[in-house]
């Protein structure tokens, strides 16, 4: 065993004789079953009455079994090859998912428009009714290349229209096509709001799952780079992209442990109490003016409320664990949350007061006019509110330096100490979903929502053009991609802070909240009030403040870009050559 390698260890799982035997067994079984299926099929073609159905059932079962056995034989025989190809396939699916989020999400919107246009066509503009499949078939199908006016400026989402359909042009009716009837069947359900809601929910759940998986991987990569190491590199091939998936599978397989003496029902329930609000707040979170599940007039309040409930899950988790470290973590979480919700609320009031609405889409649309119209740059007070908001959200998301509830060097793992497997991962899904949500919220409230730094009206002409122009408009000026980008930027800042700063002590957290942030946020609110009252829009002072704040923002962005560029171009020198050139060479 002198040259014992990992390869040997892997190979030894299949002892020399076991593998061919398994392959042989499965292959023979598969062939027998396939023959049986053929025979039964022949029987079915001739047998009358009840026997016919039995034979059909038998054929189906034997066929499935034969395929399974043959498949198993194939997989075992070519396990290495299959594994490689499975990984490649998974990578393709992964990339496809990302691309899908970026681009394919447009398709449902187009489909909705198609269906709505057909409805309008059939019943007349403004009327509502239900189309049959035959109606849809008669309408035919073609890509809307032009002349579809969108309901609202920039409406490119999969949201159901909340108000009546009017002023809508006709879809271009294509020639009848053999696939039209299939399409009609597929399109028919889309005219009901319920279908669209279900699709939206699927979208939200899918997004949150992918988001958490991606972010966990991303955080590990970022942390690795900050610590002059590589982070995950193995699973999946390219930069360990499948690490989160592998972790997820591992976590699912783990034993669901709970302690003797734990409050079992509560212990089991707690992860869901933590996770569900985090998921539900995405219902009211607009990805763009139209790409939103439910455009609530109190969207901001709704998100705040759900963020507040999620805490309860963590507290209950800590309590139900019957572990003193968990209990201490729960107490920390409780007092931290209660305290930081107040400055958070005050900071949120500033944009609400400036815009006069709680509807997130409305707040977002006010910032369409380019970089300088972003709310954070309107006055010194809005800028301060943005900073306060971001700081408070760090505490609300239990992120460093406010990660006291799970403080791993003090409380072992805090509230999560006793959790394992899937329940444990639910907490982290919730945490990462919330992290993105607050980042997106910061973008919507303060940093131009789903608009790019360029004024959106520069691309107004493209809004009604062909598909590619509209896609370009969505990428360049206005669209969910921008919000997702901004959300991820703030998420990155959170990650950045986590791997940079030490943790604050509990009394300092409370001090920072009650003695610093609370008065400061009140001051900012007061200042913003007086600013709104005393400084008229377009006055000299307002313009100067706007320009100064914008310059500050531009400077910050440029500084970040500059630092990143400097770090990247000098990465060898910054790390030092010694880390790379080891001696004796290993």
């Amino acid at each position, binding site marked *: 065993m002198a040259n014992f390698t990992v390869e040997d260890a892997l190979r030894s799982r299949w002892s020399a004789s076991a593998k061919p035997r398994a392959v042989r067994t499965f292959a023979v079984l598969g062939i027998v079953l396939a023959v049986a299926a053929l025979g039964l099929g022949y029987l079915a073609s001739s047998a009358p009455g009840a026997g016919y159905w039995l034979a059909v059932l038998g054929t189906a079962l034997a066929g499935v079994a034969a395929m399974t056995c043959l498949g198993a034989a194939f997989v075992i025989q070519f396990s290495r090859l299959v594994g490689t190809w499975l990984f490649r396939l998974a990578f393709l699916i992964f990339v496809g998912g990302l691309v899908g989020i970026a681009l394919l999400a447009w398709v449902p919107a187009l489909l909705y428009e198609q269906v709505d246009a057909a409805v309008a066509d059939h019943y007349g503009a403004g009327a509502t009714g239900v189309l049959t499949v035959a109606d849809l078939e008669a309408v035919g199908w073609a890509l809307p290349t032009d002349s579809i006016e969108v309901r609202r400026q920039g409406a490119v989402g999969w949201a159901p229209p909340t108000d009546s359909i009017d002023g809508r042009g006709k879809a271009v009716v294509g020639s009848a096509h053999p696939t039209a009837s299939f399409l009609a069947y597929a399109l028919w359900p889309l005219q009901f709001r319920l279908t669209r809601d279900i699709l939206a929910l699927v979208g939200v759940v899918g997004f949150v799952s992918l988001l958490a998986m991606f972010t966990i991987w991303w955080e590990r990569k970022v*942390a690795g780079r*900050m*610590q*002059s*190491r590589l982070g995950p590199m193995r699973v999946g091939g390219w930069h360990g992209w499948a690490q989160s998936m592998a972790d997820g599978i591992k976590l699912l397989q783990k034993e669901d442990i709970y302690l003797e003496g734990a409050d079992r029902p509560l212990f089991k329930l707690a992860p869901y109490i933590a996770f569900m609000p985090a998921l539900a707040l995405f219902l009211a979170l607009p990805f763009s003016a139209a790409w939103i599940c439910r455009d609530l007039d109190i969207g901001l309040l709704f998100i705040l409320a759900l963020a507040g409930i999620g805490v309860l899950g963590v507290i209950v988790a800590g309590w139900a664990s019957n572990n*003193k*470290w968990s209990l*201490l973590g729960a*107490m*920390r979480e409780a007092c931290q949350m209660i305290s930081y919700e107040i400055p958070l609320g005050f900071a949120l009031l500033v944009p609400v007061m400036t815009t006069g609405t709680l509807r997130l889409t409305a707040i977002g649309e006010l910032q369409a006019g380019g970089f300088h119209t972003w709310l954070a740059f309107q006055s010194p007070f809005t800028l301060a509110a943005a900073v306060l908001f971001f700081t408070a959200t760090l505490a609300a998301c239990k992120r*460093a*330096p406010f*990660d006291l509830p799970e*403080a*791993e*060097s*003090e*409380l*072992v793992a805090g509230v999560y100490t006793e959790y394992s497997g899937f329940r444990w991962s639910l907490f982290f899904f919730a945490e990462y979903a919330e992290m993105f949500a607050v980042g997106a919220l910061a973008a919507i409230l303060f940093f131009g929502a789903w608009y790019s730094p360029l004024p959106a009206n520069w691309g107004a002409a493209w809004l009604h053009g062909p598909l590619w122009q509209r896609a370009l408009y969505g990428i360049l000026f206005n669209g969910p991609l921008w919000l997702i980008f901004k959300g991820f930027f703030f998420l990155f800042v959170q990650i950045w802070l986590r*791997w*940079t*700063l*030490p*943790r*604050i*002590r*509990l*009394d*300092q957290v409370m001090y920072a909240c009650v003695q610093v942030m609370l008065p400061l946020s009140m001051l900012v609110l007061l200042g913003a009030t007086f600013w709104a009252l005393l400084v008229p829009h377009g006055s000299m002072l307002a313009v100067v403040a706007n320009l100064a704040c914008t310059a500050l923002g531009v400077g910050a962005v440029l500084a970040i870009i500059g630092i990143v560029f400097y770090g990247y171009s000098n990465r060898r020198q910054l*790390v*030092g*050559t*010694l*880390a790379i050139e*080891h*001696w*004796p060479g*290993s």
Partner: protein
Amino acid sequence: MEDKVVHGQPDLLTDFDRQRVAADDLRTEELLINMGPQHPSTHGVLRLMLRTDGELVLEAIPHIGYLHRCAEKIGENVTPVQFVPYTDRLDYLAGMNNNHGYSLAIEKLCGLEVPERARYIRVLMCELNRIASHLVSFGCYGLDMGAFTPFLYAFREREYILDLFEATCGQRLTYNYLSIGGVTQDLPGGFADKLAHFLDYFEPKIDEYNNLLSYNYIFVKRTAGVGVVSAADALAYGLTGPCLRASGVKWDLRRCVPYEIYDRFEFDIPIGIAGGAIGVPREVVVGDSWSRYFVRMQEMKQSVRILRQALQQLPAGEFRAKVPAALKVPAGEVYLEVEGARGQLGYLIVGDGKKTPRRVKIRGPSFCNLSIATHVCRRVLIADVAAILGSIDVVMGEVDR
């Protein structure tokens, strides 16, 4: 009131506490928590029983012995040369220093003369290992404070020192290199260049890490004024090394009771300085956790100085004295202390003319340093316990032996 002797905690907390005792109906029950032996910030298998009132630690009682491996009993049953590898496993982060102390004690007892080159090599190795050990301490202390990244940086630098050790003696953790009568083998070719390269690279890094962690606002707030040990307390509890120096006692065996060839080098003894001085944040109190931590950071610089000088003076010649194959420990006794990475590492060796000594007593600096934990961890927050323990920088292998 005896309890008024507060160590490091702002008065706010004691007021708070007193008031709670007064308002009896608001009094909460005390919680008895087991911190360790499997706890991330107890650095090994230390177990602390914390009696807490919520987050406030009223008392911390250390329970040790989880890593007891009968090192002293082994020392009585093996010959000195055989025992050297065991000393590596005491303070496993600074094995060279442990070897050094034991070898010196045996040499003194047996009257062995060590060649000049070997002495320099010993100093080189000890100071390098001191840097490596302090790097671990620095990194782990960041970890205790919730800063993950410095840990990786510290280990990146330490990796190179371990590479040097590996090239020198083939080992990365337990070296068995500084042996009785000298060192086991000569330095490999090119060692001096590599070491000089490393020193040039490493010295500015210390300042970088100071800027990264030592002067970080949160870090200072977490550690300054926490776990204050007065000079009198430090002496009474037998604290040595950086813990003693942080309390303002300028005492370093390398200078005060020079052994080996340390009197040939120029270096300073960093001590804890009250806040407000240059390079010391305002909040710092002499003898607090920050001082203990910062003394180590400065000591790394001094070690670099010593290494530079030693490298310059390194003579050619024998690397090992002639040691009789059947070395007998003569009748007599010796107590010898060296300045290890964590403090004064002492060996009491009593021989009675046999091959094996009658008694080997090891005074582990961590053992004495840790004994002050109960005294300091009184009326502090749980987070401060991690801060205090991390700044004392114990290695359980040395505490339990």
